[in-house]
């Protein structure tokens, strides 16, 4: 097995149990994972299979019952609350299904927050936010509050916020779960763009289209990984041949 010292993110024997005795729920029941720098990994599975819990454990939003999480060679599951808070501010970015933007703040102010919380100057934060909103194609919407933005625009603001501090890993939990098909396309484009810029991404999703942006797809059922598929490489290249587009002889 790969050593945790060289991977971007690793998990060993990860478990999360809720309740006890007959009410014991094994939400995550022994998960091992190694994610290389620049890799996009998607985790799919039916509702209740434990995929969101895995994401929470990997991103330091929740602590495992047992097992280890390593981020850039550092043990995450044993960190103090204070170290965890710092990790979440500086090392990871999280994108949620329901966006989780601050309603009272404009798009720009939402994107400025991570830099400000990390102790950067307001001037730096402003410059960074402008740059990021431009990258997600929302330069002209910077002064709108979330309620004045469409779902797709809100999620793009949330993604800009998630990458503001150049995180080591971006975690996304059903990023298109609340979006219609054209908004899904906007977010898809952005994910392909982040992927191309070699960001490391872990995404939990029901949406085959988001899953298809990944290099590797993991299927989860009943708290464990049941299948792993490498999507990169393999059948690519000649689209016409792949989809039998041709004239009858």
């Amino acid at each position, binding site marked *: 097995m790969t050593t945790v010292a060289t991977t971007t993110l690793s998990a060993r024997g990860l478990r999360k149990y809720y309740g006890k005795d007959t009410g014991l729920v094994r939400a995550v029941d022994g998960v091992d994972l190694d994610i290389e720098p620049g890799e996009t990994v998607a985790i799919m599975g*039916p509702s209740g299979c434990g995929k969101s819990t895995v994401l929470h454990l990997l991103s330091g939003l929740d602590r495992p019952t047992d097992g280890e999480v390593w981020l850039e060679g550092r043990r995450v599951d044993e960190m103090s609350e204070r170290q965890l808070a710092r990790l979440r501010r500086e090392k990871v970015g999280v994108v949620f299904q329901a966006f989780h933007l601050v309603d009272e703040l404009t798009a720009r102010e939402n994107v400025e927050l991570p830099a400000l919380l990390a102790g950067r100057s307001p001037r730096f934060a402003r410059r960074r936010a402008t740059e990021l909103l431009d990258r997600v194609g929302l330069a002209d919407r910077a002064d709108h509050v979330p309620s004045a933005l469409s779902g797709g625009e809100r999620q793009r603001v949330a993604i800009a916020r998630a990458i503001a501090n150049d995180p080591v890993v971006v975690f996304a939990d059903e990023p298109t779960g609340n979006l219609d098909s054209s908004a899904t*396309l906007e977010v*898809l*484009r952005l994910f*392909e763009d982040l992927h191309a810029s070699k960001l490391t991404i872990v995404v939990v999703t029901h949406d*085959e*289209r988001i*899953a*298809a*942006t*990944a290099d590797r*797809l993991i299927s989860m*059922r009943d708290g464990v990984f049941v*299948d792993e*598929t490498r*999507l*990169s490489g*393999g*059948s*690519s*290249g000649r*689209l016409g041949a*792949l*989809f*039998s587009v041709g004239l009858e002889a």
Partner: protein
Amino acid sequence: MQQEVVLAMLAKEPSHGYQLRARLNDALGPLGDEINAGQIYVTLGRLEKAGFVAAETSESTSERSDRKVYALTAAGEERIAEWVQEVNWPRPDLAEFHLKLVTAAAARLADPVSIVGAQRRELLRRLRTVQRAALEEPAHSAAGLLLEGIVLRLQADLRWLETCEREWTERGDQ
């Protein structure tokens, strides 16, 4: 539907034509109503000529085709083993794929869940390829519209495969 479907129905055990028809109707439900006994005997005749099937006349001396018991030859077994593993999207005959799972399970040719898994992996790889191409098309491109259609079909097929996977996993667990 390919004639391999009829061939695969024989993989479980040598059978009379009417038994094959019953099995097909069982697997297809109301969707099997277009298949008549005559078509099955025509297909069996073709398969016999091609060397995939051998017919034996049972008990009586009657030459009537409904007295014949059909069995797979070695070549037929080989053909079915190949057919079970083939992924032939984008002309996916849903009924054919479904029957592939049904016959594979009945004759224990292969684990239906692994057939679904192989199909799913291949479709996901294709989805990745075609989606990338779609996202690279400029807005309002005609080719982009076609690519979007392929993406949506792949997505629909993948959702059905997910359901197949769940269902066959549960059956396997019983």
